[in-house]
Each structure stands twice: as structure tokens, then as C-alpha cells.
């Protein structure tokens, strides 16, 4: 029997084949990373590490970018077979984005899965922290960035709190029980709670 994951140079390596969902996320990231850094948060973190549940959206956070960069990103996404739920017009979509509202993208002719593209600004301490302290995950040749596992667990337990989130957090606690560190929970808790104030 091979274990579900291993660690090499602090990269979590998940020992499994890529799914159609992974390929969709990879396609989006291949375009996004030409224009912006990013972090995948929430459901996909648990699902990519084995949680057995369905999902409709993949949450990706990114700092607010300028209009010119956004125009190029939007154009490239459309050219590569994505459509934006919110608008076909990049200027209209940018209005949402620059006002710190999410926008969503799916592949043309599909509704799900979709990418919920979530902008954040410097006011959000927790988002800035996780963004600047990413954990790398690798599945075959697909590498992507997620929050530190302990941070993701606490965020789900303390902020999101739905049944689905509590179960996701529990999956991460059990699956990564040999990897997670108690002192990190203590360090991250006040950072996460600071976003509630």
C-alpha cells in the first residue's frame, strides 16, 4: 500500500491521478499566473487532498490588479474558452473586481465547475497573511498554492463554520495529522479572528 501523501522540501505531494476538476483549475491558473499571483482556498483544498464530496466552484483569491492588467487577463481567458458569469465586457467585470466583489468564470458551454475569482485589498489581514505564506501542493506535474494547512483548518472552523466546512476541516486534521503543528494553530488563530473585528 502507498500512503496518500508525502512531503519533500516542504511541498505536499499527493499520490494520485489528476481529475477533470484538476485539469480545469490548471487551465485557469496557466492563464492567471501570467498576470497575477494567486491562492486557492476553501473547498478545493480539501477535495484535492481526498475529501470525497462534490463541488461547484473553486475559490481563488488574488490582490486587486490595475485595469490594464485585468483587461489582458480577461481577454486571454475569453480567448481560451472561458466565459464570465458577470459580463462579456471586461470593463463591467472590472467594476465588480476593483470594488472587491467576486467574479466567476466557467468554460464556454458549461456552468459548473466555475472559478470564483475573489479580489482582496490590504485591509484584510487574514487574506494577506495566507497569500504571503502559501503551502505548495503537487499532484503529478500540477503544482498550486494553498494556505498553510493549519490556517485553512482554523478558517473553516472559526469563520465559515457550515456543516460542509466543519467536515472539510476534520478531513484535513485527520489526513494531515502527521504534518500539522500545534504551535501553528496558536499562531494563526488571532490572525484569522482579526478579520471578524
Amino acid at each position, binding site marked *: 500500500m502507498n500512503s496518500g501523501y508525502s512531503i519533500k522540501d516542504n511541498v505536499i505531494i499527493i*499520490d494520485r491521478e489528476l481529475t477533470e476538476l484538476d485539469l480545469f483549475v490548471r487551465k485557469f491558473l496557466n492563464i492567471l499566473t501570467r498576470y497575477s499571483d494567486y491562492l486557492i482556498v476553501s473547498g478545493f483544498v480539501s477535495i484535492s487532498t481526498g475529501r470525497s464530496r462534490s463541488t461547484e466552484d473553486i475559490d481563488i483569491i488574488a490582490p486587486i490588479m490595475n485595469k490594464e492588467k485585468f483587461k489582458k487577463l480577461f481577454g486571454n481567458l475569453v480567448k481560451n474558452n472561458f466565459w464570465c458569469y458577470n459580463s462579456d465586457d471586461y470593463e463591467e467585470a472590472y467594476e465588480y473586481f476593483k470594488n472587491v466583489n467576486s467574479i466567476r468564470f466557467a468554460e464556454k458551454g458549461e456552468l459548473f465547475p466555475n472559478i470564483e475569482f475573489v479580489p482582496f485589498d490590504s485591509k484584510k489581514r487574514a487574506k494577506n497573511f495566507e497569500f504571503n505564506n502559501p503551502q505548495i501542493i503537487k499532484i503529478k506535474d500540477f503544482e498550486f498554492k494553498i494556505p498553510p494547512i493549519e490556517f485553512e483548518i482554523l478558517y473553516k472552523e472559526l469563520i465559515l463554520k457550515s456543516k460542509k466546512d466543519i467536515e472539510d476541516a476534520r478531513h484535513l486534521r485527520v489526513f494531515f495529522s502527521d504534518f500539522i503543528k500545534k504551535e501553528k494553530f496558536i499562531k494563526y488563530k488571532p490572525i484569522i479572528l482579526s478579520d471578524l473585528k
Partner: protein
Amino acid sequence: MKLRTDLDYVDFYAEQLKKDNKIFKQQRKLIESQLKSSSSLFKNMFGRNFVLNARKYLRKRGLI
């Protein structure tokens, strides 16, 4: 070990997965079958004017 609650199942599954990566195959089947069903459902529902009808539906659901 008796599995009583949903969290018991989550624990059990995560423990098994940690020990044996073959279980990922089941997870892959679940994910891909969901994507297939959802794709076929919405293609039939929205027809040729996919984007227009999809946006009407998304507005009703409060997603845009």
C-alpha cells in the same frame, strides 16, 4: 469501530486514504461523474442561448 455520525465517516475515510492511495480512484469517479451529470443537465436546460439563459438562472439564484 462503529460509524455513527457524518464526522465518523469523514474520520474513517481520511484515515484509510492516508494509508492507501488506491482510495483516490473512488474519489475521482465521484468527482468526474458529478461534472458529467451537471454538464449534461445545464446543456439541456439552457440550449442554444446558453449564456443568456445561464445568466437568467444565475440571477435567480443570486449568484450574479
